[in-house]
Every structure is written in structure tokens, then in C-alpha cells.
């Protein structure tokens, strides 16, 4: 681990001003469950860490009439324990339970979950985010059992590691971001993520001095659920996940959204599946067809075709769980 400066300002604007304009010069410290390991592994070697722990407004959950506003530093434990979240957003509760590690759920934060780095084992072993060796992808020719089956035409082949993102995107959440000079902007949750095509960018579509400050979750009475294909009960990464949000009127699905996780460099909206679902009568055979639609267009690498089957199942089960909710 390289020596670094540590600062913990009490103001968001100041925090942003302490961040560098290039990735890697500085890092934002939230729960630290990923960052501290990354520092030890030498994945990142910042000169300064900017902790957000002293900014009180980032730790609040505010339940308003039409939205739930979740501060960036709300812990996963506190989010899962919130009565409104439990009542109205079971897709998020399932996603948090699925993390499996009490330590990470207790210490990890909502924005930290969104901004954590990929688990790609080439990246973690020091070959860089794109894992290339003289321009050749180590992932394509190597062991890609845990890599992307969608969105893998470019140079990024890792999968996005966020547990919450698929559900937040399906639920049409918006994300507030604070940047230089306190400038604020708001984006759709899905727009937070990108598949980088060069060695400079990261997998989040932020500037290096921007900070996620809040997540706004609309209270639209959406039925919702997540399903994660996981092997172990304890800390483990899912092989594939699906989150589904929809309204059902007289048995017919409306405003449906299906989003996949751990299958692409970004959370992956399954557009064809959502389209098939909208306007259709929700039953077991539709769930099967929606699962098939979600898996269509997958381009497995040499060692991860099995994930296609998992996508079908995850979508089917998430949809049936949402419909029964």
C-alpha cells in the first residue's frame, strides 16, 4: 500500500474540491469494503483519500410522498431495514441479502455498492481494467467463466459488480451527483454506468471529482423483485441476477422493466424482455418466454455460455416473484 493523505471534510462541496481531476490521483472513501482491499492489492495508488463520513446529510433516508431519497452514505444494512423499502421495494432487499457478508452489509454504503470496481480476476491481479497484454485481451483467450455475455463487443469484458444497480434501474431511480464548485446534476440510474473503451475511463460515467450524493427512488407502486443465481450462502458473487419492476392491471403487465446484473460491463436492461412483457398477460408461460427473450442476443465468450441458461431462469423467477408480490 502506498502512503496517502487522508481527509474527511464535513461539506460535500469541499469534498469535491479535494478530489483530483484525473482518475487515480484521489479516491472517494465511503464504507471502504472494496477500496481498502484495492489499496492493499495496489489496484489503485491514490495520493489522497477523501472520506465522506463527516457529511451528515449523506446518511439520511427521507421518505417523501412521491419519492424515497437515499443518501449516498446510507449503509446497506440501514437501507434493508427501512420499513418503506421493505414494504415497497423487495427487489432491493433481496439484492442486499444476496451480498451474503454481514460485514459488507453493515459497513458498505449504497453509493459504494454502485461505484465499486469490477471483480474481474485479471483486473484484480494487476492487468488493468481492460486486461490487455500487447493489445490482446487476456479475457477472450483466457479464463472468462465469470465475464460478460452481453455488451462484450468492445474492449471491456468484465461484469459490473453492483448488487443494487439492476433493481434501481428497473425502478427508474435517479442519481444526484455533485461535482466541481458544487455543481449538481441528476441522471437516470442506468446512465451512471459505461463500458470503457480506453485505459483512462472507469466503469462509472462520472468525472474524477464528482461524488454520488443521493438516490431518488420514485414511489410508483411498482411490483418488483430480484432473483440472484448464487452458489454459496455466505459472501459470494452472483453468476447472474435479474430485477423486474412492473404494474399489473387485470392480469396485464404495464410499465415493465427487466434489468440484468453480472452479465455485462454495465447493468443490462433486457429491452426485448421488457417489450414482450408489456401488455401481455402474466403467467408461467409468459415468464418462460420473457426469460428466453432476455437471453436472446447473448454472445458468450469461450467459457461462459452457461450464464445464458442462468439469465433465462433468473428473469423467469424474478418476474414470477414480482407478479406474486
Amino acid at each position, binding site marked *: *500500500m502506498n502512503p496517502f493523505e487522508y481527509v474527511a471534510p464535513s461539506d460535500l462541496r469541499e469534498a469535491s474540491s479535494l478530489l483530483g481531476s484525473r482518475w487515480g490521483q484521489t479516491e472517494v472513501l465511503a464504507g471502504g469494503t472494496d477500496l481498502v482491499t484495492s489499496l492493499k492489492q495496489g489496484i489503485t495508488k491514490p495520493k489522497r483519500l477523501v472520506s465522506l463520513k463527516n457529511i451528515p446529510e449523506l446518511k439520511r433516508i427521507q421518505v417523501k410522498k412521491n419519492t424515497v431519497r437515499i443518501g449516498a452514505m446510507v449503509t446497506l444494512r440501514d437501507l434493508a431495514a427501512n420499513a418503506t423499502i421493505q414494504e415497497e421495494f423487495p427487489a432491493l432487499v433481496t439484492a442486499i441479502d444476496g451480498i451474503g457478508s454481514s460485514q459488507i452489509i453493515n459497513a458498505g454504503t449504497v453509493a459504494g455498492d454502485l461505484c465499486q470496481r469490477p*471483480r474481474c*480476476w*485479471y483486473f*484484480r*491481479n494487476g*492487468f488493468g481494467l481492460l486486461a490487455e*497484454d500487447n493489445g490482446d485481451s*487476456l479475457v477472450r*483467450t*483466457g*479464463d472468462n*467463466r*465469470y465475464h460478460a455475455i452481453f455488451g462484450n463487443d468492445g474492449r471491456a469484458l468484465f461484469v459490473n459488480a453492483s448488487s443494487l444497480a439492476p433493481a434501481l434501474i428497473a425502478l427508474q431511480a435517479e442519481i444526484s451527483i455533485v461535482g466541481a464548485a458544487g455543481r449538481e446534476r441528476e441522471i437516470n440510474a442506468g446512465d451512471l454506468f459505461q463500458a470503457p473503451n480506453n485505459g483512462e475511463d472507469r466503469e462509472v460515467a462520472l468525472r474524477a471529482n464528482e461524488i454520488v450524493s443521493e438516490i431518488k427512488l420514485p414511489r410508483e407502486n411498482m411490483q418488483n423483485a430480484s432473483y440472484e*443465481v*448464487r*452458489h*454459496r*450462502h*455466505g*459472501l*459470494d*458473487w452472483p*453468476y447472474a441476477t435479474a430485477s423486474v419492476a412492473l404494474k399489473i392491471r387485470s392480469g396485464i403487465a404495464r410499465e415493465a422493466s427487466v434489468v440484468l446484473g453480472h452479465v455485462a460491463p454495465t447493468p443490462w436492461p433486457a429491452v426485448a424482455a421488457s417489450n414482450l412483457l408489456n401488455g401481455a398477460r402474466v403467467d408461467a408461460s409468459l415468464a418462460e418466454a420473457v426469460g428466453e427473450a432476455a437471453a436472446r442476443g447473448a454472445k458468450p465468450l469461450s*467459457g*461462459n455460455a*452457461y450464464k445464458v*441458461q*442462468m439469465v*433465462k*431462469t*433468473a428473469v*423467469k423467477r424474478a418476474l414470477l416473484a414480482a407478479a406474486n408480490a
Partner: protein
Amino acid sequence: MAKVAWPEKGDRKILGSRIPRQDGPPKVTGTAKYSYDINRPDMLWGKLVTSPNAHAELISVDTSVAAAIPGVKAVWVDEELVGDELRYVGQVIACVAADTEEAAIEGAEKVKLQLKALEHQVADDDVALSSGRPSNKEQGNLDEGFAGADVVVEGEYGIAVITHCCLEPHGQVTEVKDGELHVWPSTQNVSRYANQFGDEIEIPQNKIHVDTQYMGGGFGSKFNIDKWGIIGAKLSQETGRPVKIMLDRKEELMIAGNRPSGFAKIKVGLQKDGLISAVDAEVWGSGGQGAFRAPPIPYVFTKVPNTRLVGKGIRTNRGGVRAWRAPNHPQGALLTMSAVDDAAAALGMDSLEFFMKNAALTDRPEVYREELQIAANIIGYRQKAHARGDSGSGPVKRGLGISMHTWGGRGHPSECDVTINSDGSVEAKIGSQDLGTGTRTCIAMVIAETLGLPYEAVTVHLGRNSYPQSGASGGSTTIGGISVSARRAATDALNDLLKTVAGRLGTTDDKLEASAGRIHQIEKAGGGVSWREACSMLGPNSITKRGINNPGESQQEGLISAGVGGVQIADVSVDVETGIVTMNEMVAVQDCGLIVNMKLAESQVYGALIMGITYALYEESIYDSKTGIMLNPDMEFYRLAGIKDVGDLKVHMMTGKGYDDRGIIGIGEPPAISPGAAISNAVANACGVRVPSLPLTPERVIAALQKGGDIA
């Protein structure tokens, strides 16, 4: 006069009881100090510099930058490696000792290696990669065996390389003081540790002091002093300061232990009554740089009349092989039991019936049949069993699988001193080690039983090479060794005491015995004198006697023996839409002769089941062909089972006639052998297809189902 022979069932006061382990409270409260916890005044931290390449020529090592880092006190370099080849990632080249761990890490990173990359080879699953002359072992006439068979089934099976993944990594603290070397190593081999320094350091063995009070797992990987042991001693000599070198997790998983893989093509012939008539096996695999030894196939069924076993080794640029609980047996069990169970399924024969029938082809048919019946009853086999794949229409399929195993486990040579003091206190000294198996507790139990004292009355000192030498803890040899040496020492010491007491009571020692804290006329418990009073008759003296276990003699006397059988049945669920295998229940029925502590014996089996479920479902050492590195040297993708993953575990120990009377036999290895095979058979029974290779990860399950046409 006390006799050495073990007491009969009705006369046992402590042996066989369920006394909790002595090391439990200190471990739970953190007062137990492992080697990793030893911190000496003014201690340096040593960090290894290892090969980043799987295969390369080491041209030069430049330590100048590292040596100039503040806090770095010494850099050791293996000069013999310079100009030579490096053969695997993680191979130890140098070591940096510094005031702080951080400085040592920084120093190790700054040692410059000039390397010339060479071709490497890390794959171990393709028989085409094998080299050298194959081994060949034949019995009977294979052609006749298959000609006489009614069903012939051929299949391919495999079991991946796993590592020992000790929770306490390998390493030690060394300190040289007044010309003497003190070492606190994490070792399974206290008595035979000092001699391994050989000529590497100029300190005679009588000035080397080894101390291991608690250690965090070895499983066969911690018999040796290892290169880092020698480096530590040399750096301590050079700097005059204590040095701690403990491997980090990455190193631990790469270089501190490999269980070899085993892949095989196996042809099995069955008669129509289900009896195995022929087994033809070609097996290949590797565990790194060492020689390949073909696992035994057919395993357990040693009396199959016609067999052939061809072994082909694959050399890989990966860390070396080390013994892992029952070396080669888990591989032999998985490969054999999968193949014969596939043959039974092809014949349409129920697995339990099949194993009952073929017990006739083993060395201990009665034991296996009795154990199969008990295991079947505990798990409810007859209520739950179904033909392979006949497991209902839902996506979650349930199935049962059986495996059987064997192991030797005869006690090793061991010496133990037992002292009875005139105040009545009793202590034992023995150069054995407690790996977490409960060795301390068992020694105290044997001595207390012998002296007719409560268990708490005995203090056991172990883990130092200044104590009488006792064997390495490997191969399930410890319990037999330490129990006999402790028993003999305690018996001799007691008989000395009885002589003294007899003189004072005006009787003869042959008329006295010790029980319930008193020394009294035989069969007159409650009379005589108290233990304390008896010991006070020693005046200023104490009694110390040495007990020796000579395995051959002790076996003849019936104190110990070798050769056990065990049966395991697994009950699993397979989600055929996701490939996820879940453990419902696992039953282990095991014999190990006379049981010293029932609770600890069962604990050994529980631990083995958990370790076995781990290698059956999750665990695998994954290497990247192009870069030659291990991709999962961490606890994230080197997956181990957690407590929620293992299902309901049930252990039944065989006791009574035919078991107790065999004397004491070891238990560490046998129960770790069958889990992979039993679970693989259960998965095949559940989902109708064989998933050929362990671990049974969802990707392998889905691939097998897709190949079998069960899912699109």
C-alpha cells in the same frame, strides 16, 4: 498393579467420553497464541520476493533500491537461483526484513528481478500433455473380465487441484540469542523440525528450540521447515533480531500446498448380479513439479479379479504437491465410485444394493455392510431412494449418493514423560503437537483414566522439541502414538507409586489399584488412602516415567491397530435450471477402533465432511494458461463452504464389539475421502446425468445437463 491394556467397556471412566477440548476456551477468547501471534521485542518482518513468471531464467537480482528503503535491515537472496530457471509463479527468490511490515512489503516490491521468460505449461487436465513413462499395474485378465461382463460402461471423470488453504498460513518467528535459535513455527512436526536445518545454519540441534502451542491447520502441508524457515533463521543470525515470516494468503494458496488433480477414463464391467468383474483405468493429472502417483483404482474394491491401472503424469509450472488428508484416496474414491455407480445405474441396480453386493470385493465386507445399513437407516435411504434421474418434474431434483473408503491410521512412534509429584499433581511432557484436533485433551484423558483421577488433575505440556520426541501429525497416526506412550508412562509411574504406598500400608503392590482419586485394595473402592495422601508418601521425591510407543509391539499387544472402513451417503438438491447444487444432508458412518474422546472423534468427522463438501462443490485452484498465474489466490474466488452451505451433517461412530477391541486407530484422514464421491453420485442420481469433474460448480452442472439433452 496397573496394566497397560485398555480397560474393558464397563471399567472405562473417562475413555470414550465427550470431554470438550482444552484448546476451545483459549481459542475462543483469543488467549491462544498461534505462530502468527508471536511478537518478540525488536522483531523484524520478513516479506518474500517470489517469481512473477511461471517459467523464466533468473538473470539477476538487484537489491540496492530495496536495501536503501528506510526501515529495511537485511535482504537475503537465493544466489543459487541466479542464472537458473524459475519453475512456477510464487517460487521464493529473496526475502526483505524490515522494522515494519509495510517497509518489508515495500522493500520486497522494490527488489528488481531481471528475467528471461521461457515457455510455461500450467494446464493439467489433458492427457495429451503427459510426459515420461506411464506407470502400469495389472491384475487378472482384463479381456476375460470384460468378456464375462453383462454390462460394460465407460466414462471420463476428474477432480481438480485444490490447495490446503490453512487459515493460519505457513511461516514462523525465529530468534537467535546467545548462540541459540528459538523458533515458533506453524508445524505438524515439532520433534523433527530442528534437524531439518541441517547444515544451513551453524547452530547445533541441541541449541535449537522449537515451540508450537497452537497452530491453525496443516492438513499435511506443514511437515517441513520450508525455505522460509531457513531464511528466517539466517536473517535472525545476520541481524541479531527476531524475524517473523508468515506467508500472505496469495502465497499460501500458490506455494504452500497442492493436492494433485486426477482425471481418468475408466471402463467397468459388471455381471448381471451387479458384481464388478473388470476395471480398466487410464489416469492422468498433476500437482506441479513433482512426480505423479496414480491414485488407486479400483479404490476399496481391491478384490476385483481383473484390473488395469495406467498412470500418466503431467508436469506443470505450478507450486509443488503436498500431502492432503489421505493422499490420493479422495481422487481414487471419486474416480472409482463415480465409474462403478454409473455402471450400476446402467444395469438398473439400486446403489445401496450395489455397494452391499460389492462389499464382498473389499478387505472388510462385514464392516462395510454394517456401516451401509446404519448410514441408510440414518438418512432414510429406502424412503427417499429412486432410480437415477427419476426425480420428479419440478426444476429442483433431489438425489442420494454413496461412497466407501479405507485408511490405515496406525499410531506412530512416540515417547511421553509422566510425572507424579508428591503434592499429587500430575504432568505430562511430550514433543507432539495439537493441530486443533484435541491432542492435549486426549493425552490428559488417557493419563487421568490410568491414574484413576479426574481429567482436570492432569496438566499436559506439548509442542516443544525439548520434550520426549513424538511423531509428526500426519496420516492419522497421532492419536494411536500419543495414547500409548502416555498410557505406558502413566502406568509405570502409577506402579512405582503403588509400591511406595504398599510399603506404608503394609500390603503388596499387586493388591492395590487407583480409582476415583484413591489408592486402595483391588475392588475396594472408597477405602485405602486419597491420591494426595498417597503421593505425600513420596516425601521430597517425585516419580517420572517415560512411555514409549513402538508401533509393532503395541499392535501385537492390541493397544493400537490399523485399517478402517467408512461409509458416507449424501442427499443433495440440484436446481437444473441454474445448475446450483445444494446440500440437504450428509451421513458419515466411521470406525476408528477404540475411541478416546467421542466428541473430538466426531468433530474430526464433521470437519472432514465440511472440507469434503467444499472440494466437492466449490474449491479449485484455477490457473491462466497464457500468463501462467493463479487467477484465484484469494478467499473470494477460491471458494470455501460456509456453515449455511453444508446442510445437516450426521456422524455415527462405530463402537462396541469388533471395534473397541481393536485398540486405538486414527481418524483424521478417512472421513475426508468419500465426500466428493458421495456427492457426485448424489448429483447424478438427482439430475440423471453424471457431472464428470469436481468441483460441481453450476457451470459444470449446466454443461453436463446440456450435453445430456436435459436442457436446451
